[in-house]
């Protein structure tokens, strides 16, 4: 007997399977091996989260109550996929080029990266989706009840009824079930939805899991359908006769309601956060849309194939008061087919879970990017320049948001008592999120649409929807009093929620959709026509509407002299140090510069902003870059580019722009090269003078004291030995200097012979620390990654020389009150990457290029060395096949040593 325990076991087993599949898909994706993970088939299947627990169970109930009307819910999306895939392709292209993370992000990004719009759309999405999540929880709970209490038919009925009556004893159990389901789903979503902050925000594990769920639920529904038609109905023709005899089969359409529902489901298909997530954000390849355009409607058709037969036979076979929403489950149960019922249960379970997972993931991204992060960035001091790794904060905020969204769903379920009211909430939700449609469509197809218009249209539509549909849906006297329902707001009868302007007698959903859509669109268009967009809106508008014509960059930032180093500090905290350093290094290389700091050209800033928007959303990324760069300026040329669209003009201008940018860059590079040469020549000139100084100083002491000793009548024994000692010390100093010079000259001429040995990095660092003795002198040392126990094969003595130099430098130059040095080791592609970072004030930007030159000291007047240390280090690293570079933007002076783990020895 399918008792509660078996059921729980099956659920847990199924969820465990999902975990395994998601985990496996993530791993394959990381290895880059799973090309079929990114196939059009998986994409199409992932779209099936459109079919939720509500459609799995509810379609049959819908059919049992209202006949063929349930088809409208499938016709809408089918029309969109078949007739409008070019429009979808445009959305996907925009999503890709602008690194869009959610529908709120898209709308905000289009209208000048407006934070206000992002918040607004997010709130609408939360308001529209929360009841829907509650609905899924309810469907799981009801199916649980139907199943577990099937011991006697009466118990099942009691449970179903109990589900509708808050406060009943059985209901407490249902609450517990809903809570467990919500918690489990939150866990799954957090595990696989927030593993990393990718620039493209794709979740292979989640997509794979919901694709599997799509197969499961289709299979389950088809199995039940087949059982009903061939097992109970007596074959196809017998079933058709039964359908003819039943009232469901009769065409009883109300044209208005049909049209409104089709429109509504089509709009919801585009604007539901979860649909946008799988349709646009998770899309791997535009060409997948071609397959999905026919495959997804096919899927929908299969899902709806057996709905009518199941409904008809259910009405015939089941008791009068049986809940038609549960026919898919209760028909097999009543026939004693527990295996089939179990399958059906899992089908419903997977429909509900996949919807909740993706919806909470999409909502959490929006809530976190558009509400939590902006607030956090404002509260945290220093805005974009805050300390610490922002990625952790973003991930944490996403995780909390997921928990919050599911918590809200559960709360809604709990408060609404899981009653019948929930069953109609599906359409209410649809109508709510559909309010975003005018702003979305206008933004993508109409250049004239602007931010003020979008905000105005959204507000009006949202208010009308809330007043005419959402608030009344709680029932009379729940939120809106019965008097308002009856007599209108403030007693004006034309303000009756379900009969605005005196037009009564319409179906409430049709009524609400009609008015909200009309006012939303009307206000949106009118206000857009009457107000002027900001420059940034115009640019983004051109980018969105003409996404296929020019995928080139919009200008946005004025280059000028900006703090590349500040940008790097910020980027490291959002993208992660490694990714940010790669991005900066590549950008610098593309500009023909060495090192990690590219010129902040408009192109580079655009690229950086876009990379960051993949993690925190366009509006936030834009705000953070503006904080460092100052205001974004849009030049006259940029506006011209928007105004003049003839291909020739664009072409001509972009050529001119490219040429002028090229010239500017060349000039900048020449200037940089010239500056460096001038500085080098000054240095070379100073070289002789320096050598002279370094040699003469010890010689002075030696000569002077040796003369004193020579003429030394009357010296005491103590003085004699002291002076002789000074002579000795200074002679040693002189020798060391000569050794260094000789060493450098040998290294520079490449005459050095290397002694390659193998040894562990740990031992090498320990040795260097011990021989400098800096720890005893107050420098605190932190090490990371040494525990990896990396083995090196190189000239260990030479490498140790470099380490000693860097550690001694940190001790000499670090000016922090409590000086500390962090040594961080990592292995990347057979290379050792070792960073020595102190907590002092670092090397000033203008000296960073020079510190590796001979006799270069950050300050002429400081410290005791001859200024040869880093020059020697650089030569040594070059001989070892590696490099030493200054790493800017680490908070203190930071030197990066890279070298191959195994040195390739030159053939003698």
């Amino acid at each position, binding site marked *: 007997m399918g008792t509660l325990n078996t059921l729980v076991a099956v659920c847990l087993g199924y969820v465990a399977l999902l975990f395994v599949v998601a985990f496996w898909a993530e791993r394959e994706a990381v290895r880059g091996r799973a090309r079929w993970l990114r196939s059009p088939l998986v994409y199409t299947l992932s779209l099936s989260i459109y079919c939720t627990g509500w459609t799995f169970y509810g379609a049959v109930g819908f059919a049992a109550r209202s006949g063929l009307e349930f088809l409208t819910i499938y016709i809408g999306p089918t029309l969109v996929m078949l007739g409008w895939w070019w429009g979808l392709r445009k959305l996907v292209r925009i999503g890709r080029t602008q690194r869009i993370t959610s529908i709120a992000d898209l709308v905000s990004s289009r209208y000048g990266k407006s934070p206000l719009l992002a918040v607004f759309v997010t709130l609408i999405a939360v308001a529209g989706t929360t009841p829907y999540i509650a609905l899924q929880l309810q469907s799981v709970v009801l199916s649980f009840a139907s199943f577990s209490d099937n011991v006697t038919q009466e118990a099942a009925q009691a449970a179903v009824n109990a589900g509708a009556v808050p406060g009943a004893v059985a209901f407490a159990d249902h609450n517990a079930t809903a809570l467990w389901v919500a918690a489990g789903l939150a866990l799954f979503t957090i595990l696989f939805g927030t593993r990393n902050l990718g620039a493209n925000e794709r979740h292979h594990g989640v997509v794979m899991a919901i694709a599997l769920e799509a197969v499961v639920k289709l299979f389950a529904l088809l199995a039940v359908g087949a059982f009903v038609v061939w097992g109970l109905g007596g074959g196809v023709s017998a079933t058709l006769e039964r359908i003819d005899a039943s009232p469901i089969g009769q065409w009883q359409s109300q044209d208005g309601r049909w049209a409104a529902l089709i429109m509504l489901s089509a709009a919801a298909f585009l604007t539901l956060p979860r649909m946008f997530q799988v349709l646009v954000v998770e899309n791997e390849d535009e060409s997948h849309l071609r397959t999905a355009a026919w495959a997804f409607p096919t899927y929908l058709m299969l899902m709806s194939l057996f709905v009518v037969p199941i409904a008809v036979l259910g009405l015939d076979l089941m008791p009068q008061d049986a809940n038609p929403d549960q026919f898919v489950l209760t028909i097999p149960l009543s026939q004693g087919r527990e295996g089939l019922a179990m399958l059906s249960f899992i089908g419903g379970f997977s429909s509900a879970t996949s919807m909740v997972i993706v919806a909470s993931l999409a909502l959490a991204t929006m809530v976190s990017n558009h509400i939590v992060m902006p607030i956090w960035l404002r509260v945290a001091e220093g805005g974009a320049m805050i300390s610490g790794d922002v990625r952790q904060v973003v991930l944490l905020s996403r995780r909390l948001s997921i928990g919050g969204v599911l918590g809200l769903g559960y709360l809604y379920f709990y408060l609404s008592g899981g009653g019948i009211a929930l069953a109609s909430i599906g359409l209410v939700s649809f109508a709510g999120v559909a309010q975003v449609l005018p702003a979305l469509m206008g933004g993508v197809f109409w250049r004239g649409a602007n931010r003020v218009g979008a905000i105005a249209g959204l507000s009006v539509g949202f208010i009308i929807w809330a007043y005419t549909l959402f608030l009344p849906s709680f029932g009379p006297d729940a939120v809106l009093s019965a008097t308002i329902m009856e007599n209108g707001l403030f007693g004006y009868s034309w303000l009756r929620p379900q009969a605005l302007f005196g037009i009564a007698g319409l179906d409430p959903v049709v009524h609400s959709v009609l008015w909200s859509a009309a006012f939303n669109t009307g206000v949106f268009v009118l206000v857009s026509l009457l107000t002027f967009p900001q420059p940034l809106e115009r640019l983004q508008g051109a980018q969105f509407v003409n996404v296929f014509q020019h995928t080139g960059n919009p200008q946005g930032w004025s280059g000028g002299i900006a703090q590349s180093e500040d940008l790097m500090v910020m980027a490291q905290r959002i993208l992660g140090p490694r990714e940010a350093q790669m991005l900066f290094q590549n950008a610098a290389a593309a500009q023909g510069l060495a090192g990690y700091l590219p010129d902040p050209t408009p192109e580079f800033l655009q690229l950086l902003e876009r990379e960051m928007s993949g993690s925190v959303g366009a509006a936030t990324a834009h705000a953070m870059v503006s904080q460092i760069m100052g205001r974004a300026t849009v030049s006259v040329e940029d506006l011209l580019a928007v105004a003049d669209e003839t291909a020739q003009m664009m072409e001509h201008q972009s050529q001119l722009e490219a040429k002028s940018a090229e010239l500017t860059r060349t000039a900048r590079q020449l200037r940089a090269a010239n500056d460096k040469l001038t500085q080098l020549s000054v240095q070379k000139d100073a070289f002789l003078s320096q050598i002279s*100084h370094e040699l003469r*100083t010890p010689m*002075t*002491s030696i000569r*002077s004291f040796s003369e004193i000793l020579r003429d030394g009548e009357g010296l005491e024994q103590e003085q004699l030995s002291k002076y002789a000692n000074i002579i000795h010390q200074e002679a040693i100093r002189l020798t060391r200097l000569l050794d260094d010079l000789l060493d450098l000259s040998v290294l520079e001429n490449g005459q050095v012979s290397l002694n390659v040995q193998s040894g562990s990095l740990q031992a090498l660092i320990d040795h260097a620390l011990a021989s400098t003795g800096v720890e005893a002198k107050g420098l605190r040392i932190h090490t990371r990654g040494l525990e990896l126990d990396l083995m090196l094969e190189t000239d260990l003595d030479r490498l140790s020389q470099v380490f000693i130099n860097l550690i001694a430098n940190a001790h000499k130059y670090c000016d922090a009150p409590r000086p500390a040095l962090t040594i961080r080791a990592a292995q990347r592609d057979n290379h050792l990457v070792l960073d020595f970072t102190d907590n002092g004030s670092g090397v000033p930007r203008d000296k960073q290029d020079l510190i590796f030159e001979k006799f270069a000291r950050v300050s002429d*007047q400081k410290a005791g060395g001859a200024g040869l240390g880093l020059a020697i280090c650089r030569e040594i690293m070059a001989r070892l096949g590696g490099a030493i570079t200054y790493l800017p933007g680490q908070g203190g002076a930071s030197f990066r040593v890279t070298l191959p783990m195994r040195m390739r020895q030159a053939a003698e």
Partner: protein
Amino acid sequence: MGKSVLVIEDEPNIIEAISFILSRDGWAVATHSNGHDAVDVVRAKQPDLLILDVMLPGKSGYDILTELRADGATKDLPVLMLTARGQNKDRDLATRLGASRFMTKPFSNAEVLEALRELVSA
């Protein structure tokens, strides 16, 4: 003779050497080892003679000399400049800024004493 001399030099061993030979010759020797407040120290001690190194931490000997020459009280103070950079342009610069005498390190002890005597008697 009992004349006072102030030595501004940052290398401890060279300070030690100069102090020794000058005291043995009867000078009252005071020393100072950085450039920052060298001018103030000169004003406070009012020595009869100054030995000034060029490469000093904080402020170079040339800058100190320029300031001293601009001040009425020290305008005529005899200054012996010492430098470890032996190039002609260093000597020229020192002369132009008003150094009374210029010597290159390493020096002979006897020459230093000789130079000092000439400077105070002049």
